[in-house]
C-alpha cells in the first residue's frame, strides 16, 4: 500500500533559522498521525509546506505514491490536502455558508445556495459537526469556527486533513466531539495529521506519532509503544518532571473586587449580568466556564476596552470601572489576553518593540521624551533568555514567530511587569510542556510575591493544578466558588452548564 503522504528530505530555511532540516515524514491512509515537538520545532512549517503555503528549499512530496507539485493552497486542495490553521482564516463578516463555498466552483456561477446549504448540513450531521449555515462567523465561538473550517475541508473532499493545534481552543466536550469526527474520517480512509502539545490527547487519538526536534525528525513511533512520559522525554531530549506543588495562599486582603457588574456584548445583548467576584492578594482564582459565557466581555471590561453598563470594579481600592486602559494599567493591571495576535501583540512590529509595548511609558525605557532603545534591547534580550523565546532577531516582526513563541512574548512582557493584579486568559495555550511548566512556575512565584491572579481557562486540569479557589461562570454570572481541593470534574461540569450542585458549594451573592 502506498503512503497517503510522503515528504522526503524537506528543508525550509527562514532568515536566521532552519525550520525544517531534511525531514522525512510519512502518513498512511486511514491513520491519525500526531506531530509533536517543542515550540518552534517546525511543525506548522512542515505542514504549511504540505498545504502549499510555503515552498520547501529542498525535498519532494509524494501523494499516494505519485510525485506532487504543490505550489499554492489551491494546488494542495486539488491534490486532496486540506489544512485547518493555527490561526483561522475565515471571513468574519460572512455567513458560514458563504465561507464554506468561497472558492468552490461546483455550485455554478450563480451560487446555488440551497444545494450548498443542504450539502453542508448533510456533511455536518454525518461527521457530528454541529453548525448553522446561516450564522455569521463573528458570532461564533472559536470551537464553532473550527467546525466550519473542517466542514469546509470536507466539502472539498480532502484525503489528507491537517489540524494544527485544533484542541488548543476547545472545551473538553468540544475536544471529545472533534476526536469522534477525526475517527470517523480516518475510518473512511482519510489520513489525518494532528498537531498538539497535550500528550493525553495525542495518546488518546493517534495511531502513530512523529516527533520533531529543532527542525529534525526525531523518530516516528506507534502509539502502543509509548506513553506520555516517554513522549515528553523524546521531545525535549531529557527527562521532564512536572513538579508543581500548590502553596497555600497567604490569604491577604482583597486586591480586585467586582460588584454587580453588567455589560453588553457586540450584539448589544447582556453578556455580564450582575457578576460578583473578589481576588485576594497572594491567591490564584481560577475561573472555569464554557467559552461564550461572558469571559471575553469580562476581560474587556477589566482592561478598559469595554464600557460596563453598571457595577463597580475596584483595583487596590480604586474604582476602575469605565476607566481608560492606561489608567488601569497604571493601577497595576497585567493581562495575558485571549486574542494574542490582535490585542496582545502588534504583529508587524519586532520582538523588542512588543516587549516594551507597555513599559515604554515608564523609566527606565522612557527618559523624558526619549525612549532608551538600548535599555529596551537589554531587557528584551534578558527576557528572551529567561523565557527561552526563539526569535531570529530582536527586530524581526513577531507575526513570523511560531504560535508558542508568540504567546511567550506576551507572557514575558506581562509577568515581568510585576502586576498587582494579573488577568491571565489561557496562559499556557499553545505552549509545549516545558514552557507550560515554566509559566506555571512563574505564576506561582508571582502569587508568592503577593499578586492577585485571575486565571481564566477551559482546561480543568490546569485550573485544578494552579488555582486556590475556582469560580464558575455561567451566562454572565458566577454560579459558584469552591476551594480547588473540592473541585472535581463532575461538580465543575454541572456548574458550567448552569445546574446547581447540591452541596458543598458556597454561593456568592
Amino acid at each position: 500500500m502506498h503512503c497517503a503522504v510522503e515528504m522526503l528530505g524537506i528543508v525550509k530555511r527562514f532568515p536566521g533559522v532552519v525550520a525544517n532540516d531534511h525531514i522525512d515524514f510519512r502518513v498512511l491512509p486511514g491513520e491519525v498521525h500526531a506531530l509533536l515537538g517543542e515550540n518552534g520545532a517546525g511543525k506548522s512549517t512542515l505542514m504549511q509546506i504540505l498545504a502549499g503555503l510555503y515552498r520547501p528549499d529542498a525535498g519532494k512530496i509524494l501523494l499516494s505514491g505519485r510525485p506532487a507539485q504543490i505550489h499554492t493552497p489551491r494546488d494542495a486542495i486539488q491534490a486532496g490536502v486540506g489544512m485547518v490553521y493555527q490561526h483561522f482564516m475565515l471571513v468574519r463578516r460572512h455567513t458560514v455558508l458563504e465561507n464554506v463555498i468561497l472558492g468552490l466552483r461546483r455550485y455554478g456561477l450563480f451560487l446555488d445556495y440551497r444545494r450548498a446549504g443542504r450539502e453542508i448540513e448533510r456533511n455536518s450531521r454525518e461527521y457530528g459537526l454541529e453548525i448553522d449555515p446561516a450564522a455569521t462567523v463573528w458570532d461564533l465561538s472559536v470551537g464553532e469556527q473550527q467546525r466550519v473550517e473542517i466542514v469546509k475541508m470536507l466539502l472539498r473532499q480532502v484525503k489528507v486533513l491537517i489540524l494544527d493545534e485544533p484542541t488548543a481552543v476547545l472545551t473538553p466536550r468540544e475536544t471529545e466531539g472533534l476526536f469522534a469526527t477525526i475517527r470517523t474520517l480516518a475510518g473512511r480512509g482519510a489520513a489525518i495529521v494532528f498537531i498538539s502539545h497535550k500528550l493525553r490527547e495525542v495518546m488518546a487519538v493517534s495511531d502513530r506519532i512523529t516527533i520533531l526536534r529543532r527542525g529534525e525528525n526525531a523518530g516516528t513511533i506507534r502509539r502502543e509503544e509509548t506513553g506520555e512520559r516517554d513522549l515528553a522525554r523524546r521531545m525535549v531530549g531529557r527527562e521532564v518532571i512536572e513538579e508543581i506543588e500548590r502553596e497555600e495562599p497567604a490569604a491577604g486582603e482583597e486586591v480586585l473586587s467586582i460588584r454587580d457588574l453588567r455589560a453588553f456584548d457586540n450584539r448589544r445583548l447582556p453578556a455580564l449580568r450582575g457578576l460578583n467576584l473578589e481576588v485576594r492578594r497572594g491567591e490564584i482564582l481560577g475561573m472555569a466556564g464554557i467559552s461564550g459565557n461572558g469571559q471575553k466581555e469580562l476581560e474587556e471590561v477589566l482592561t478598559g476596552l469595554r464600557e460596563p453598563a453598571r457595577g463597580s470594579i475596584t483595583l487596590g481600592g480604586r474604582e476602575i470601572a469605565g476607566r481608560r486602559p492606561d489608567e488601569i494599567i497604571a493601577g497595576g493591571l497585567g493581562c495575558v489576553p485571549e486574542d494574542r495576535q490582535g490585542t496582545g501583540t502588534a504583529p508587524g512590529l519586532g520582538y523588542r518593540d512588543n516587549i516594551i509595548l507597555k513599559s515604554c511609558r515608564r523609566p527606565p525605557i522612557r527618559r523624558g521624551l526619549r525612549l532608551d532603545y538600548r535599555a529596551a534591547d537589554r531587557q528584551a534580550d534578558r527576557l528572551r533568555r529567561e523565557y527561552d523565546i526563539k526569535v531570529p532577531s530582536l527586530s524581526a516582526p513577531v507575526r513570523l514567530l511560531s504560535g508558542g513563541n508568540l504567546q511567550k512574548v506576551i507572557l514575558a512582557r506581562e509577568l515581568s511587569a510585576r502586576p498587582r493584579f494579573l488577568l491571565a486568559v489561557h496562559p499556557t495555550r499553545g505552549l509545549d510542556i516545558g514552557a507550560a511548566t515554566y509559566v506555571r512556575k512563574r505564576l506561582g512565584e508571582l502569587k508568592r510575591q503577593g499578586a492577585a491572579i485571575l486565571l481564566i481557562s477551559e482546561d480543568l486540569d490546569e485550573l485544578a493544578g494552579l488555582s486556590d479557589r475556582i469560580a464558575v461562570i455561567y451566562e454572565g454570572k458566577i454560579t459558584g466558588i469552591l476551594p480547588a481541593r473540592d473541585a472535581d470534574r463532575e461538580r465543575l461540569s454541572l456548574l458550567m452548564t448552569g445546574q446547581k450542585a447540591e452541596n458543598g458549594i458556597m454561593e456568592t451573592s
Partner: protein
Amino acid sequence: MRPLTFITFEKRLEPGRGARLAVTLASLFLALVLSGLVILAVGVNPVEAYTALFSGAFGTLYGLSETLVKTTPLILTGLAVALCLKMRLWNIGAEGQFVIGFLASVLIALALPGRPWYLLLPLMAAAALVGGGLWAGAAGLLKARLGVSEIITTLLMNWVAILFSQYFAYGPLKGLDGFPYSPAFCPGACLPSIGWGRVNAGLFLALAAAVVLHLVLKHTLWGFEVRVIGDSPKAARAAGMKIEKKIVLVLALAGGLAGLGGFVEVSGIEQRLSPHTAIGYGYTAILIAWLARSHPLLVILVAFLFGGLYTGGEMIQVGMGVPVAVIRILQGAILFFLLAGDFLMNFRVRFGKKVSSER
C-alpha cells in the same frame, strides 16, 4: 466548466528579499516607457526628451537651483503625507493645507507691512503652521470622534481651501489695478536668498523639518506610539495608548508641515497671493511619501527627484515643445505601476492556468 479568468492571484506569504527595491525601480522604468510613448506621439524622440529633461534638471547650475526651489515645498508636503502614512492615515489634503499655510502667511505679511524680518518671518511661519494644522486637525477630529474617513474629508477640504484663497485673491486682497494679485511683500516678509538662483533659506527649514521628524519618530515615545498604532490599533489601545488623541495630533502636525510648505513657497518665491497657489505639490506629495516608504530622510531624496521632474518638464516644454502634461502622465504612471508592483509583490500571479474545478 470553463474558467472565467485566465489569470489568478494567490496570496504570497513571503515577499522575496530585495523585492521592494526591484519593484520600485521596475515601476519607475515602466512609467518612463509609457510616458515615452506619449512623447513619441507628439513627435519627439523620447530618449532625447529624457536626456534633455535630466540635464535640464540636474545638469546645469541654473537647473539645479530651480530643482532645489521645487524640492523645498515638496519635502514639506511629502513629510505631511509620510507622517500620516506611518499611522496608516491617508492625508490626501496636503494640497489644501499647503494653500492655507500660504494664505495665512500672506495675511500676516500684508497686515504688518514694513516690519523687520525677525518679527515677520516667525509670525508668518507660525500662522502657516497653525493654519495648516487646524485645517487638517479638523479632519482628524472628525475621524477620531465620528469615524469619518480622513481620505474623504482631507480631499474635499482641498477644494474649500483653494476656493477660500481664490476668494481673497479676487476679493479683499485684489490689487489696485483690479487684477487678482495681492500687493507684493515688503522685504521683511521674504525669506532671504542664499545667493544661488532663487534658492532661499526655506530649503534649510525643509531639511531641518525632515531631520527633526526623523529623530522624533525614531527616538521618542511619541514616535514609538505612532508606529504601534500604525501597525495594530487594537494592541495599541490595549497597551494604554490614546489613539483618538494621536489621530488628531498627527493630522494636525502633518497639516502644519504642509502649511509650512505654503509659507516657504510664498515667502521665498511668490511673495504675494495669486489665484494659482495650488499647483499640485500636495498631490505629488502622496507619490513622494509612498516612494519614500514614508521614511522622512528618504522623502528628501525623492522630493529632490520630483523637483527635478518639475524643472526638467518645464525645460523640455520650452525647448522641445513637449507639453508639460507629459510630466503629469509620468507621475501618474509611476504611481500606477508602483501600486501594481506592491500588489504583485504580495500575490503570486499565474497566467493561463485553469482555475481549479473541483472533482
